[in-house]
């Protein structure tokens, strides 16, 4: 129904006039014909148009459709499918990198030493960031950053992605999300955790982040990066309109990080770490280290250093604390080297344990240089030379053999050799070739001056005595397979050396403090002056290397105390007690039966039935 019927007549006529004017304006010159009436309309319809016009139109439309069809066939029919595929991919396909999970590091008893646990990273888009003062304060408190720091990061307006805090606990991240602040988001990531903290810090090292991901920066983390880290993968996804994944495909699959099982025993590591710390603090030492090796397999049971660091507190890292001294630092070993010189001489048949060497008057001059003993003694047997640690006696023994022989023995046990141990920064130490030795050097090298070793090398070398004259490489990973040992000394020489080294821990030796109840122990003290800028100083490095139980050695323990200045500095006073603590704890942890004669007595008494019921 037309609304015009309801309008007043005046309005109707006005509307009609407007409509007529409009039509007139549209038609222009044909106005008279139109106003003349409907009878002329027939003529208009019969107006002859040129035939080509409609054909042209038809042709035009047809060719447009044809062009479309050709294009469609071209794109879809297999001639050029790339274009549509690219367009499809741009809309629905996504390629996501997949970071592998870093492997876990276990100790020999499968206790976790390092593992990656889920964490969150909180990031903000400064452009979208919008929070009131209260929210900002809450956010800063949760992220444990100062409000000024937060403001500074948010102020960075030309970026659309700013990390506010990384490696955050998932629980805290949830509370941050609960604040519902615009422009603050969280990302999933992993955090490396070291449950043992400072105890294993040097050995394990730590990881750090680069643009491509997490990498080991120190210690085992770095050394076994290839195993632990894995390889990142690339995943190809097809999503639907709503962002759900429909199909996936690996461009290349990620290789997950492998777990590694170290030879370390968590308990022994703790014992060594505690003992090293105590010894260093009690003696006001600059630093201290200890190494525990399994004598049968060469496995590294413990490796501890002081000062230590907490891997969880990265901001406080100090290179002085982070360095794995037992592995990377060398020192002049001093007397702990003597047994090797004596063993080399015995191996050549030059001396026997009971050969008498005259060490009086406690000094010996070779080519203008004088070697002295701290405690001059008279005639000593070779056994006593080792037990009492006589420099003069050792020099006299060493000068009897060719330099080459001494060098060969020292090299065979690993001094001056590239370490086979897979530990970061393991050093070769310094042992010059024998052709460059002057006679006095042959004497000084024989008692451990003029060459340098790391504590790990020293402990490793003592395997020769703890085993029957052969040596196996140090293994950082737990090994179940037998390694073929390399023979250095004859079994009889090794047995004689064990006897001498046991004598060194007797009351007449230099290290009675190394003894432990219930077990027979053997070892050698070392007290060497420290070299600084080519001169010997008043600072000392005190060391003790030994093994136990002597009847069937199972462990080798090396302890080094750097620069003790609490009055005492002899290896027998400073390092030997720490050795005792570590060895006793280790033997107990490994449940090795006691072998000392006093225990045999207890056994005899018990077997007689006197005490069996009472206990």
């Amino acid at each position, binding site marked *: 129904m037309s609304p015009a019927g309801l309008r007043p007549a005046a309005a109707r006529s006005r509307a009609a006039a407007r409509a007529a004017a409009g039509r007139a304006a549209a038609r222009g010159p044909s106005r008279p014909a139109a106003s003349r009436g409907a009878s002329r309309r027939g003529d208009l319809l019969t107006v002859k148009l040129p035939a080509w016009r409609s054909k042209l139109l038809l042709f035009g439309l047809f060719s447009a459709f044809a062009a479309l069809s050709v294009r469609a066939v071209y794109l879809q029919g297999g001639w050029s499918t790339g274009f549509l595929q690219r367009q499809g991919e741009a809309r629905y396909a996504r390629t996501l990198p997949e970071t592998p999970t870093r492997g*876990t590091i276990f100790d020999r008893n499968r206790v*976790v030493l390092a593992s990656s646990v889920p964490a969150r990273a909180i990031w903000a888009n400064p452009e979208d960031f919008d929070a009131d003062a209260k929210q900002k304060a809450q956010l800063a408190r949760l992220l444990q950053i100062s409000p000024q720091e937060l403001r500074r990061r948010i102020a960075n307006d030309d970026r659309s992605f700013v990390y506010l805090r990384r490696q955050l606990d998932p629980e805290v991240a949830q509370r941050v999300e609960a604040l519902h602040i615009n422009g603050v988001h969280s990302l999933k990531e992993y955090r490396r955790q070291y*449950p043992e903290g400072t105890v294993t810090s040097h050995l394990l090292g730590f990881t750090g982040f680069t643009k491509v991901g997490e990498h080991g920066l120190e210690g085992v983390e770095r050394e076994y990066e290839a195993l632990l880290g894995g390889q990142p993968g690339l995943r190809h996804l097809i999503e639907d309109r709503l962002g759900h*994944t429909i199909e996936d495909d690996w461009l290349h699959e990620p290789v997950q990080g492998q777990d590694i099982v170290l030879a370390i025993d968590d308990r022994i590591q*703790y014992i060594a770490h505690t003992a090293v710390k105590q010894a260093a603090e009690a003696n006001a030492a600059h630093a201290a280290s200890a190494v525990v090796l399994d004598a049968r397999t060469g496995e590294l049971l413990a490796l501890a250093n002081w000062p230590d660091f907490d891997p969880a507190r990265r901001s406080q890292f100090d290179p002085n604390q982070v360095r794995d001294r037992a592995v990377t630092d060398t020192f002049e070993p001093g007397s702990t080297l003597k047994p090797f010189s004596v063993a080399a001489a015995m191996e050549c048949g030059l001396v026997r344990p009971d050969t008498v060497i005259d060490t009086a008057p406690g000094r010996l001059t070779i080519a203008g240089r004088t070697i002295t003993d701290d405690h001059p003694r008279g005639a000593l047997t070779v056994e006593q030379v080792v037990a009492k640690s006589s420099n003069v006696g050792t020099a006299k023994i060493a000068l009897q053999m060719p330099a080459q022989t001494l060098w060969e023995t020292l090299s065979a046990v690993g001094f001056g050799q590239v370490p086979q141990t897979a530990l970061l920064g393991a050093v070769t130490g310094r042992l010059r070739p024998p052709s460059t030795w002057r006679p006095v050097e042959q004497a000084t090298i024989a008692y451990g001056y003029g060459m340098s070793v790391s504590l790990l090398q020293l402990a490793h070398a003592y395997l020769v005595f703890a085993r029957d004259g052969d040596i196996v490489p140090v293994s950082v990973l737990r090994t179940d397979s037998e390694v073929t040992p390399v023979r250095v000394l004859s079994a009889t020489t090794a047995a004689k050396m064990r006897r001498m080294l046991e004598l060194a821990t007797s009351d007449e030796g230099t290290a009675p403090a190394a003894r432990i109840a*219930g077990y027979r122990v053997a070892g050698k003290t070392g007290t060497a002056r420290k070299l600084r800028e080519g001169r010997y100083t008043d600072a000392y490095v005190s060391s003790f290397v030994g093994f136990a139980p002597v009847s069937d050695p199972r462990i080798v323990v090396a302890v080094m105390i750097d620069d003790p200045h609490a009055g005492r500095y002899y290896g027998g006073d400073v390092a030997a007690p720490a050795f005792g603590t570590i060895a006793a704890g280790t033997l107990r942890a490994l449940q090795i039966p006691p072998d000392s004669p006093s*225990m045999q007595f*207890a056994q005899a008494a018990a077997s007689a039935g006197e005490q069996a019921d009472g206990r």
Partner: protein
Amino acid sequence: MTRIAPLVLSSLLVVCALALVASQYRARELFAELEVSQQDAKALDAEAARLRSELGRASQPAIVEGIARRLGMRAINPDRIVMLPATAAQGPQPVAAAAKEQR
């Protein structure tokens, strides 16, 4: 026959087409489920790693030692170890009867 064949075939085609759509849909549904399960598996793995790490933290020798001391326990002392022969058959071979120290 020639009249019926196209009819049968075309209805067969329709049925097949519907089946294809249905199976595609089902496949996508299952894929989504798989995706969710894989996410769950990952989350559980991460949780397991966290718990193992927590366990390691709780069983640190330092903590165990602290608790043992609080309970008045002491490290085994060789004075208190008695050596006993294992059996008569094995003769006087000494055997460690040392009480195993609890970690």
